[in-house]
């Protein structure tokens, strides 16, 4: 009778995520690597105490489920439906006492402070315009598609080989600024005109030498011809 009631309730409220449904999804897609009840195995980490924060990040970016172990998780097409993801997050959150999904407020941040924080902590790998880059044995992803919540989560988790930044290193107020800056890099105003992919001084230098210098030589030739002619 009780079970019937629960089922009835679930039918009535299909939008409410439940850990019970999540456990089923977990059994289908996750248990092979992460082990029963998220205890972790030799090939995948434990999910106890990672909280809704980590589950939300890995599932909504398509980082998990991973095609095979040993790969760097990358942003990819979502395999699970939105409902399945909601349920799974509720289930992973119920496995321990992890942090909840953060609610950043980038509009409260300061763009200039954000750029400073980004340049100090992130630009080394992700490049100052957040176009991504390389480190040995890993690929720091471009942040063009990252949402405010995903950025806030990634900073606290440190996915794959990215370092993690505690609230002591980057307080929430600075995190808001940081997100505001990243969002700005997603749609910069390109005041100089042609953005050249925003990947730094090398293409800019090439354009300067090949186009700018050639134009200067042309001007000199014109001036010279006028003087002689």
């Amino acid at each position, binding site marked *: 009778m009780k079970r019937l009631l629960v089922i009835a309730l679930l039918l009535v409220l299909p939008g409410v995520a439940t850990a019970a449904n999540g456990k089923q999804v977990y059994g289908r897609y996750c248990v092979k690597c992460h082990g029963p009840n998220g205890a972790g195995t030799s090939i995948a980490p434990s999910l106890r105490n990672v909280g809704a924060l980590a589950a939300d990040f890995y599932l909504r970016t398509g980082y998990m489920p991973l095609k095979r172990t040993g790969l760097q998780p990358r942003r990819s097409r979502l395999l699970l439906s939105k409902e399945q993801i909601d349920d799974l997050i509720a289930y992973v959150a119920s496995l321990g006492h992890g942090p909840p999904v953060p609610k950043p407020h980038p509009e409260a941040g300061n763009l200039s402070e954000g750029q400073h924080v980004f340049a100090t902590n992130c630009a*080394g790998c992700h490049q100052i315009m957040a176009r991504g880059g390389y480190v040995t044995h890993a690929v720091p992803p471009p942040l063009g598609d990252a949402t405010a919540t995903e950025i806030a989560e990634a900073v606290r988790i440190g996915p794959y080989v990215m370092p993690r930044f505690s609230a002591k290193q980057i307080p929430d107020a600075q995190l808001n600024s940081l997100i505001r800056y990243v969002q700005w890099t997603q749609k910069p105003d390109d005041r100089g005109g042609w953005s050249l992919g925003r990947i730094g001084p090398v293409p800019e230098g090439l354009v300067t030498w090949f186009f700018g210098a050639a134009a200067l030589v042309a001007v000199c030739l014109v001036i010279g011809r006028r003087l002689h002619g």
Partner: protein
Amino acid sequence: MGKARDALLSGAVLLLGRRRRLPRPDAHLLPPPAQQPRAETAAIALLFLAALCATAFPVIYFVDAIPAKTQYLGLSIGLALLFLAAALVVAAQSVIPTEELAHEYPPDEHEADEEYLAGLVEESGKGFTRRGLFKLGLFSAGGALGVAALIPAVSFGPLGVKEFYGTPWRKGRRLVDENDMPLRASDIQEKALYTAFPEGADKEEQGSALVVVRLPRSSLTLSGRVEGYDADGIVAYSKLCTHAGCAISLYRAPLFAPDEPRPALVCPCHYSTFDPADGGSVTFGPAGRPLPMLPLSIDGKGELRARGNFDDPVGPSWWGVRERRPSP
């Protein structure tokens, strides 16, 4: 072409003509120059300004208290050259009378022509009323510029080389963050990268900045010179890459050790990769020697302190970098 030859010829005549300066009749070749004392004064003043600016170069070079030295060094040389050029322009335009030679003549053995030229050159100096002062200005500007050009050679050593070995790190010196707050061992978490500085020292100094990370004690393989340099799994290295001196700002910190690349400190310039668990040894990239490591200890209040100086000279390598160690 013709102009260049004239210039060479007049130069030669000037030199030769000086030796056998014949008494010349008082008749002038050129109309008497309109002497322009004001232009001359301006030229002399500009020359001395050039000398002053060029003299500033060695002063800026040697006085360490001056901030933004590079910019001031550039400014001093730039202004000196600018003033010198201006002085020469003023002198050429308004002080020295000009006479163009359009006529070609065969070189040598025309004594009359030579004399004529020598006369021209001599008279072209008549525009000066204070020859001596102008010469003094010219020599002091040229001399000061010459000295300024040579001064940077001092950097080759042996005078300045001491700095390469010296660092502000001493036994007992506390580690502070960029806001001068002492770093506590309990604040240093695994998988995070921290930058630290010596308390009360110049953060800009080459040997100051550190990268600090915490690793599981069981993963550390510190041996030889750096044995026991960690404090409860916390290790500290110089932040300057030993290849080209860029700041080590990348930390490869695996979330799940069995499946992911080992922890590594990476330099963003040329991807030199150092193993923080193994005394900063090079695992990839162009760096030729390990990151210098700083021995750490935790004091009674839980704060991090240095236990001495680095085991190796900090910063990019140079000829003979392995000959000496920093004094403890």
